[in-house]
C-alpha cells in the first residue's frame, strides 16, 4: 500500500499510468527493484519525455502568465502612483472629479470586513469541520461534506444576490435594531439601520469563507494519523480530549493553510461585497456604516473610467495583489516554525493527561 503510493508521488502522472498497466505480469519484483525498474522504464519510454516536457511547459506558461499579469498591472498603474505618490495608500480621499486618488478608506474597509469575517468564520468553520470528521456518523457526514463542497462552488454573484434579497431586509428590520439595544456592544453599531454596510459585508464574507475553510480543515483533520489518535485514546482520553489534544494540534498547519486560503478569497472578493456594503467612501465610524473595499471599488469604478482614473483603479488592483501576497507569505512564515513547535508541544501534552506535571 505505502509502496505503491510512493511510486505515484515520485513518478508523477507518467508513472501512475504505467503502474496501472504494469502489475499484471510482474508479480515477483523485489520492492526496491520494482521501483528502480519502473523509474528506469519511464525514462526509456518516449512518453516519459513528453510528460516531462508537458510538466515543464506548464510551469513555464504559468510563470509567464503570472509575471506578465503583474508587470502589465504595475505598468498601467504607474501613472496613478506617480500622480498621487504615497497619498495613494495613505489618503482617504477618492474623488475622480478633482483627480484625487487615495485608497486609504478602501484599504481600511477591506481589512475590517476580512478581519470581522474571519472572526465569525474561524470558530464556526473549525467546529463544523471537527464535527464532520470526528463526531458525526459517516452516513451523515458524507452527504454534508459533499453539500459543503458544493457551496464552495456557488458563484459569488449568487451569494451576493441572496444576501441582498434575503439578508438585507432581515438585518435592516431585526438584526441591526437588536444590536443597537445591547448595552456596551451598541456603541459599535451606531447610525442608521440600512441593512447594507460593513457588518453585512463581513457576514457575507464569512459565509463565503466557510465552505473553503471547512473542506480544507476537514482534510487536515483526517490527515492526522490513526496512531496519534489511538495513542491519545490509549492514554484514557475522551473523544473530545483526543480531538483537542491530538487531532487539532496535529492538523494545525493544515488548518492555518485553510484560514490563509479563505482569507485570500475574502480579501479579493468583489461582486458579493459590492452588492451589500453600500458604497460609502468615508472612514467608517460604526460597523453599520456603508463602505467600499478594494475589490468592490474596482467593480464600481472600472467600467466608466478612462485615463488617469483607469490607471488609479488598476492601482487598486496592485494594492490588492500586494495585500494578498503579504497575507499568503505572512501566513506561510507563521505556519512553518509553528508546525514543528506545535507538534512537539502537542506530544508531551498528549502523554501528560493522566499523569500530572505536564511541561508548560
Amino acid at each position: 500500500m505505502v509502496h505503491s503510493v510512493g511510486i505515484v508521488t515520485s513518478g508523477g502522472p507518467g508513472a501512475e499510468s504505467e503502474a496501472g498497466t504494469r502489475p499484471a505480469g510482474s508479480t515477483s519484483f523485489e520492492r526496491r527493484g520494482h521501483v528502480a525498474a519502473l523509474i528506469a522504464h519511464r525514462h526509456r519510454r518516449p512518453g516519459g519525455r513528453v510528460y516531462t516536457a508537458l510538466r515543464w511547459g506548464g510551469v513555464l506558461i504559468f510563470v509567464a502568465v503570472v509575471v506578465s499579469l503583474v508587470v502589465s498591472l504595475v505598468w498601467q498603474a504607474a501613472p496613478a502612483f506617480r500622480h498621487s505618490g504615497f497619498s495613494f495608500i495613505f489618503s482617504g480621499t477618492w474623488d475622480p472629479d478633482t483627480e484625487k486618488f487615495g485608497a486609504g478608506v478602501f484599504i481600511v474597509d477591506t481589512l475590517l470586513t476580512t478581519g470581522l469575517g474571519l472572526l465569525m468564520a474561524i470558530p464556526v468553520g473549525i467546529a463544523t469541520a471537527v464535527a464532520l470528521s470526528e463526531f458525526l456518523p459517516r452516513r451523515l457526514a458524507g452527504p454534508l461534506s459533499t453539500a459543503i463542497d458544493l457551496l464552495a462552488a456557488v458563484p459569488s454573484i449568487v451569494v451576493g444576490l441572496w444576501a441582498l434579497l434575503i439578508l438585507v431586509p432581515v438585518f435592516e428590520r431585526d438584526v441591526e435594531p437588536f444590536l443597537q439595544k445591547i448595552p456596551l456592544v451598541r456603541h459599535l453599531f451606531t447610525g442608521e439601520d440600512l441593512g447594507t454596510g460593513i457588518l453585512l459585508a463581513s457576514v457575507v464574507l464569512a459565509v463565503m469563507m466557510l465552505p473553503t475553510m471547512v473542506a480544507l480543515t476537514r482534510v487536515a483533520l483526517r490527515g492526522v494519523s490513526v496512531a496519534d489518535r489511538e495513542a491519545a485514546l490509549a492514554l484514557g482520553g475522551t473523544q473530545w480530549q483526543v480531538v483537542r489534544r491530538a487531532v487539532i494540534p496535529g492538523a494545525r498547519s493544515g488548518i492555518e493553510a485553510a484560514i490563509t486560503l479563505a482569507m485570500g478569497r475574502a480579501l479579493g472578493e468583489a461582486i458579493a461585497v459590492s452588492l451589500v456594503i453600500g458604497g460609502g467612501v468615508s472612514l467608517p465610524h460604526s460597523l453599520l456604516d456603508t463602505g467600499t473595499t478594494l475589490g468592490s471599488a474596482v467593480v464600481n469604478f472600472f467600467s466608466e473610467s478612462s485615463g488617469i482614473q483607469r490607471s488609479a483603479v488598476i492601482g487598486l488592483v496592485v494594492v490588492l495583489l500586494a495585500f494578498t501576497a503579504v497575507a499568503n507569505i505572512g501566513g506561510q512564515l507563521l505556519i512553518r516554525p509553528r508546525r514543528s513547535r506545535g507538534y512537539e508541544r502537542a506530544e508531551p501534552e498528549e502523554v501528560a493527561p493522566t499523569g500530572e506535571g505536564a511541561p508548560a
Partner: protein
Amino acid sequence: MQTITESDPSGGSRGHRRVLGLVKVAAVLAAAALITAACGSSSPSATKKSSNKNASASTTTTTSAAASTTTSTTATTAKPATATVKAATATTTTAKPATPTNAAASTPGGSLSTGLTSTPSAALTGIGSSSIVPFYGKALYEYHAANSAVTVNYSGSGSGPGVTAIEQNTASFGQSETPMTAAQLAASKGPVLQVPVDLGGVSLSYHLSGVAGGLKLNGPVLAQIYLRQITTWNDPAIAALNPGVNLPNENIIPVFRTDTSGPGYDVDQYLIDTSTAWTSAIGTTSPSTTWPTAGRASGDTGEDLNAGVATYIQETEGAIGYVEYSYALQANFTNAAVANPAGAYVTPSVGTIANAGAQAASLSATNFNIINAAGAQAYPLANFSWALVYQKQASTNTGIVLGKLFQWIITTAQGYSSGLGYAPLPANAVAVAHQTLLGLETSSGSPIFTN
C-alpha cells in the same frame, strides 16, 4: 508480495467501479437533458414558438419552420422561418398600444442606398451602455431574425468601455449614454460618427406603503434628501409639496448607484441645475458618472447596477432611488413626479420622456443635454443614448452592414421602444442620426451611402 496482493483486489473491483462510474455519468447526462428540456419549454424562444402557432395558421410547415429558428440549422429552412418570426412580431407589436413604427420610417429617416456591391453578411460586435440593453436585446434579436446573415453581439458593460472600445478600435461600434468628449475624440484613431439611437429616462422610485405613485419632489428637496438634511418622509418640506397626502413618519433611505452610471449622471446634472445646496456640497458644477461623495453621506446606501438599486427599493420600506425607467417599468415601481422648469410635476412615462426629447431642437453630439428640458409636460430626467462608429470603415462591407443596421434601428426598431420603457426617437433626432450615417466612408474616403 503483500503490497501486490493488496492492490489486486482493488484491480478486481475496478471493473465494478467502472460500471458504477458509467451509471453515474449516464445519470448526470440524463439529469442534464431533463434540465435543458425543462428550461427549453419555459424559455422565451419556446413561448414565441407557441405564439407563432397561434398567430399564423395551423399548417404543419409553419411550426416546423418556427422550430428551426430556435435551433437555426440550415440556410434553406432559415428563410421561411424568418418570415414566420416577422409575422409574429407584427402581431405582437400591434397588440401593444401606440407604436408609431412606420410613421418614423416615412419621416426624414429616409433610406440609405449604396451603389457599392457587397455580400450583406457580417458578424458585428458592440460594447457599451447597460441602460440600452433591454432595447438592444429586443431590436438586435429581431434584426437577426429578419437578416439571418447579420449577427450582432452586444455587451452591456458600461458606457466607459464603449468609448474605450472605439478609442482602441476593438469593436464594430461603441455605445455611450453621453457623446464622447473632445479629449476622447482626439484620442481615437480617426473621426468618429455619433448616432443618437434611443431616448430613455430615469425614474425616482420609492417604496412607501400607503403612498401612491406621483409623490411630488423638486430638485432642492431631492438634494436635501441625498445630503441627509431631510431624513423622514413626513418632513415639512415634502409635506409642503404634497398637500393632502398622508405621509408616514418613516425614515428615508436614499439609494445611489455605487458603480458609475448614466442614470447617476442625469440625476447629478438635474440637481446641479436646480439646487445650490447640492453644488456647494459637491464642489463642482460639472456632472459625473460617479455619484458624488457628498451624496454618499452616512444614512445613504449604495447598490450596484440598475438591478441592485431596484432590488433594494423593492425590499426596503422608506427607500428612494434612481433607476433607468425601463427597469422601473419592469419592476412596476411607484415613481415620483419630478418638478420641471415649467413648474409642473411630471411622472416618467414614454409620453413625458418623448416630450423631453422633442425639446432637443438642435440636437448634436455637442448639444445633447435634455436634462431639465423646457416644455410643460417634459420629464426632466431624460437622455439620448449614442452609438459610436468610425467614419472611415476599414472594411467596406462592414460599413454597409453597420449603416443598414443603424438605419433600421433609428426607424423600424423604434417601434419596440415604447413597450420597453423608452420613447421613440423624435423626427429631428432621426434626421440627425440619418444624416450622420450618410457620413460613413470607405477606407479610401469615398462615401458609402447616398440618400
